[in-house]
């Protein structure tokens, strides 16, 4: 009898959660979508526009995205002008007053996080694709992930006050799991603090800061500018001098130049996932770091990088 009752109650609870009005959320990237899922659970329906294996600077503003935005209650954007090339026309054409910038359903996830690389002084496009408002790849620090999740919790609670306690509970649970995971990651990365690496694009400053990597150079001569022979030669020389053994590349860049550099310097090319969905294993926010850190530690051990 007790068993029957508990099953019945479980069903009731499950039914109640499913029946609850879902908040329809569109996130510009899979990282943000994963965080919305963590906080929102069954109360939200969330979809990402850009895939994790896609360069988030260059996404095509396809009309199918207009359809997804048209029905959304909430839009979460990375901000810091990451989506400047494709999101504004989509939002305009969405014909959805709820998600226009400044409207209650619009969330710029970057407003409460720690932002690095904010340029000082005069900036010009001679510096390449500089982001005047700082480096937009900020989600690669778990503490920023926590901040984003907090902002999402707050926004969801505003839009769906009935779910506030659920969101608070789910956020607390995520916070706890992330804290545990951070201990694990710190233990894994602890012995390798200060390891020198080269990355393709400036996607990793927050990750490097958090986990103690020393990024000493970039395959790109300037942000967003494809590799040039002169810069590649300089980089190879610097890598040999400093004994750099690891080149981190995002999955959407061509491996030709990194491979050539690796052959010449004896370094290893490591394709890490800068986003959830960037590889099969990086299926949610915590799995993203699990994947990247496991790969990184294996590469450090294999190459003896210091």
């Amino acid at each position, binding site marked *: 009898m007790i068993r029957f009752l508990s099953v019945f109650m479980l069903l009731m609870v499950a039914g109640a959660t499913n029946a609850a009005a879902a908040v329809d959320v569109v996130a510009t990237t899979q990282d943000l979508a994963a965080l919305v899922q963590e906080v929102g659970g069954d109360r939200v329906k969330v979809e990402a526009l850009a*895939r994790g*294996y*896609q*360069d988030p600077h*260059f*996404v*095509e*503003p*396809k*009309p*199918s995205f*207009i*359809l997804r935005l*048209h029905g959304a209650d909430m839009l979460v954007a990375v901000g810091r002008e990451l989506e*400047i*090339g*494709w*999101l*504004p*026309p989509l*939002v*305009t*054409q*969405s*014909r*959805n*007053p709820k998600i*226009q*910038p*400044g*409207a209650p359903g619009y969330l710029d996830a*970057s*407003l*409460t*996080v*720690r*932002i*690095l*690389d*904010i*340029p*000082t*002084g005069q900036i010009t*496009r001679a510096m390449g*694709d500089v982001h005047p*408002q*700082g480096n937009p790849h900020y989600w690669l*620090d778990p*503490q920023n992930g926590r*901040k984003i999740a907090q902002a999402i919790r707050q926004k969801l609670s505003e839009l769906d006050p009935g779910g506030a306690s659920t969101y608070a509970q789910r956020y607390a649970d995520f916070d706890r799991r992330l804290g545990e995971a951070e201990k694990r990651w710190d233990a894994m990365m602890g012995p390798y603090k200060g390891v020198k690496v080269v990355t393709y694009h400036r996607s990793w*400053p927050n990750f490097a800061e958090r986990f103690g990597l020393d990024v000493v150079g970039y395959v790109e001569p300037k942000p*967003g*500018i*494809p590799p040039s022979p002169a810069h590649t030669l300089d980089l190879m020389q610097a890598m040999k001098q400093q004994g750099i053994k690891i080149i981190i590349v995002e*999955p*959407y*860049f*061509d491996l030709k130049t990194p491979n050539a550099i690796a052959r010449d310097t004896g370094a290893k090319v490591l394709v890490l996932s800068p986003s959830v969905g960037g590889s099969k294993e990086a299926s949610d926010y915590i799995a993203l770091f699990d994947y990247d850190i496991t790969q990184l530690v294996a590469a450090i051990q294999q190459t003896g990088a210091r």
Partner: protein
Amino acid sequence: MPRSRTFLFACLAVTFLSASASAARQTPGTPPPDSQSPEALRAEIARLQQQLESLARTYDERLAALEGRIAALGAAQTGSPPPDGTAAANPPQAQAPETSTPQSQAPPALQPPPDGTVATGTPPPSGKVFNPDIAVIGNMLGAVGTNEIEPSPGLDLDEAEASFQAIIDPYARGDFFFSFGPEGVDVEEGFITFNTLPAGLLLKAGKLRAAFGKVNAMHTHALPWADRPLVTRTLVGGDEGLSDAGLSVSKLILNPVMFLEATGEVFRGHSDVFNGTTRSDLTYVGRLRGYRDLTEGTNLDLGASIAWGSTEVAPDSTKRLIGVDATFRYRPLRRAIYQRMIARSELIWSQDRFAGGSPTAFGMYASGEYQFARRWFAGGRFDYSERPLFPSLSDKGGAAILTYWPSEFSQIRGQYRRTRYAEGTTANELLFQFLFSIGAHGAHVF
């Protein structure tokens, strides 16, 4: 600058002094007078410990903040950015409440503040925050070879387009595009877009490029060629195109199969295609567009358009334009910055109607563009068009295009164009183009 630095050092010194002085005043271990029982004492000690810890934290944060400020000032003086590249202009704000009796003996930790205390909102530059996004795009065109029918200068700054774009208020945004060319200044487009209307409606009012087909709505700098196709030049008004003052309403037709958008427009009636003589001689444009993702990297875009209005060919003469267009795109997401392919065709029928008859001219182009490296695009185009009013006269041609993109903001293009005109002459030309953009130009509609 030196004065403010001195002031900061003074502040720092005062903070240290007051901290140590108050710490000396209240030595830990002196029991408060009214706590007698051991439990109360223990609780009191725990409370004090907590207070001490929180104060230590507060001071760490404050000191780090001051350090950051000093570093920033130093950096500003030497002209170099702060060492860690972070926003030194945004000092961390101590979040602990102000306490009147600081009693910390903990040594000040000279480290960056614990995360979570960094204020990260970037303050916008005052006074400029509501300025629109401004951009200027230059289109330098050159031509080599002979063309007796459609002559163009050997070298010309064909167009400088200035754009001003901003959000107007919570309900609308505004877009202005001024075109400065050899013939003078022209408002290429200038319109308000109401994007928060109910029922899936989008309303534009102002001067607009009409939603007739694909090429007509594109600005010159957004074309994949150095020129407009023959059919556009012959039947749809050339560079200026079907562009007029009017209203445009478009609506999403929601369905489970595809993106479907219907657009209806009404214009004053004066453009390079239509010409009304009275106030009621308006031009009307209608368009239906369907779009569907085939896979994540391929999609199909289909459209049908119609336009009608008055002309000045004869008294009470009118013209009707009908167009269909199809675009197939391929762009693999993982290699989106290196590889893409676009195949496109538009067929256009132009029918003039007047007392003497109703001749229909047909024209079309079919084009393909392929990106084969990060900075390189190759393309080809086939052109055919009959002449309006004289459909028995037809021109035909083709073009091969090679485009190089140093960056997103400039491109260099060479185009070989061969046109066989109805008059019997053939023009072989080499067109070349430099496109360059400064400022913040809003992203283009797909």
